[in-house]
């Protein structure tokens, strides 16, 4: 799948700094409506910084971030959520002492409480029957896998056009990892575009259409998932032979 001529999200020459630390270096991404795009890379290469730049917790020092063709880098986080970008945060980051239902409500924070709220709630409960069962329970008491379901459900409650996921498989058992990736594909088939940071490259390349590879803040490779799965450097750096076996 090649990038659509009218991308949903685009980074153009984005640089970000934390003080003197230069993290993203002249980065370009382009994500078309309907895609699942994965961002691969080792520790501390700027993956979470990419997510924070999309959400507005980090501002680019130079460069532009476009959503639906319009620059958003000056918008508040709240305005970005209202326009249709929702995050699934690294390590889930539910509100531990709020109930599962209240966490879902927080996902819909920028929206009016209308009939569509109940519609979206039913959709989340349909995707995750476990979440429905646990709706009155405090989120901090759920297992890691259940928390990840709530985190994804919380993002869906924003009725987003784009979901940005930061390492959705982190800390989950292999069984839950499978489930999470199945859900990601299901959500995508229902029309939501997904930009997903992953360290688990083998899994990510199974569900993603395309991927970027980030190394110390520089995009060193990009292409379709198929191309990247066959790429010799990727196989050596990110995919153990076992993983390649299951991936192809």
């Amino acid at each position, binding site marked *: 799948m090649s990038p659509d001529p009218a991308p949903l999200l685009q980074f153009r020459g984005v640089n970000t700094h934390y003080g003197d630390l230069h993290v993203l270096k002249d980065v370009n991404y382009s994500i078309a409506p309907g895609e699942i795009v994965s961002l691969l890379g080792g520790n501390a290469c700027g993956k979470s910084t990419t997510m924070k730049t999309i*959400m507005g*917790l980090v501002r680019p020092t130079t460069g532009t971030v476009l959503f639906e063709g319009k620059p958003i880098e000056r918008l*508040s*986080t*709240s305005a*970005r*959520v*209202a326009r249709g970008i929702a*995050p699934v*945060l690294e390590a889930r*980051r*539910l*509100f*531990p*002492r*709020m109930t599962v239902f*209240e966490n879902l*409500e*927080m*996902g819909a*924070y*920028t929206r009016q*409480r209308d009939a569509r709220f109940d519609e979206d709630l039913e959709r989340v409960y349909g995707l995750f029957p476990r979440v429905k069962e646990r709706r009155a329970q405090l989120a*901090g008491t759920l297992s890691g896998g259940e928390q990840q379901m709530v985190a994804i459900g*919380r993002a869906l409650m*924003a009725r987003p056009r784009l979901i940005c996921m930061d390492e959705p498989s982190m800390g989950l058992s292999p069984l839950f990892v499978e489930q999470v990736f199945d859900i990601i594909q299901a959500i995508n088939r229902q029309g939501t575009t997904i930009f997903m940071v992953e360290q688990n490259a083998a899994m990510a390349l199974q569900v993603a259409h395309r991927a970027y590879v980030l190394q110390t803040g520089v995009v060193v490779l990009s292409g379709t998932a198929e191309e990247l799965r066959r790429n010799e450097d990727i196989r050596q750096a990110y995919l153990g032979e076992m993983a390649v076996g299951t991936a192809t």
Partner: protein
Amino acid sequence: MTSADLLLQQVINGLSLGAMYSLLALGFTLVYGIAELINFAHFNVFMVGAMVAMLTLQSFGLVGQETVLTGLPLIGTLGAAFAVAMLVCGGIGVGIERLLLRPLRGVAGPAPMITTIGVSYVLFNVVLLALGSDAKNFPNPLPPIAWRIGGAVLRLREVLIWIIALALMVGLTYFVQRTRMGKAMRATAQDPEAARMMGVEVDRVVMTTFFLSSALAGACGMIFGLYYNLAKVDIGFAAGLRAFTAAVLGGIGNVPGAMLGGVVIGLIEAVSGQTVGTAWADVIIFGLLVLVLIVRPAGLMGRLAPNKS
């Protein structure tokens, strides 16, 4: 009076003091929960609340305990004094946050806390210059109605204080638990970055928190005046310190904890004042605080290792 009557009387007094400390403790706990800041200005926002309530009552022509009102005029006068004290104090709280603390947000170290101490002294000195240091006769238009319970006396003012404090606590609990802004406050207290990512405007949450906590201090100032029939520029320190102790005792950052802590401190103050002497009240209060913190470092209702980023 038998000793049982004396005890009952002190429980009645203690509940009134407790209502006051609870309301004041809530302000410390709310601000701490959201901003991780001990707001020392709170001591004297409370004092300003007492003064504003007094001036409001005086503006209705009430002097000392001479004018007694009943019915609607009584309710209207008291309601107006509560409202004005709460709004003025809420406004002061918002001003402190907006003008002095927001520029310091994200500054590491004690700068924000020191700023609140400075504000506290500014408020103190402004009132000192404007109104003087003498103890003022706080107008109290309540009719002298009282009920006998055995040998103890329950006055109308006590019942009124309980009802108002309870109503404010129920209202606050409803706000925090059920409203959109209240949920945003809880989310921000638990994980500010995640709350922001949900679209919560943290600036508005912080401002609302300062408004609520300072408005409660204003109500508390009015209650203080009604209870003691006096207002004085230095009332903030003793009451504020006990209320702060109540917040820590209950578990700072924990709303029900602040309410419980306030009542516990109020009861200890009244009962120990009666049984072992007023001079010992503070010794017992702070001794208990130390003891509780040794056994439960997070306070009676607090959690250790709050889940914060």
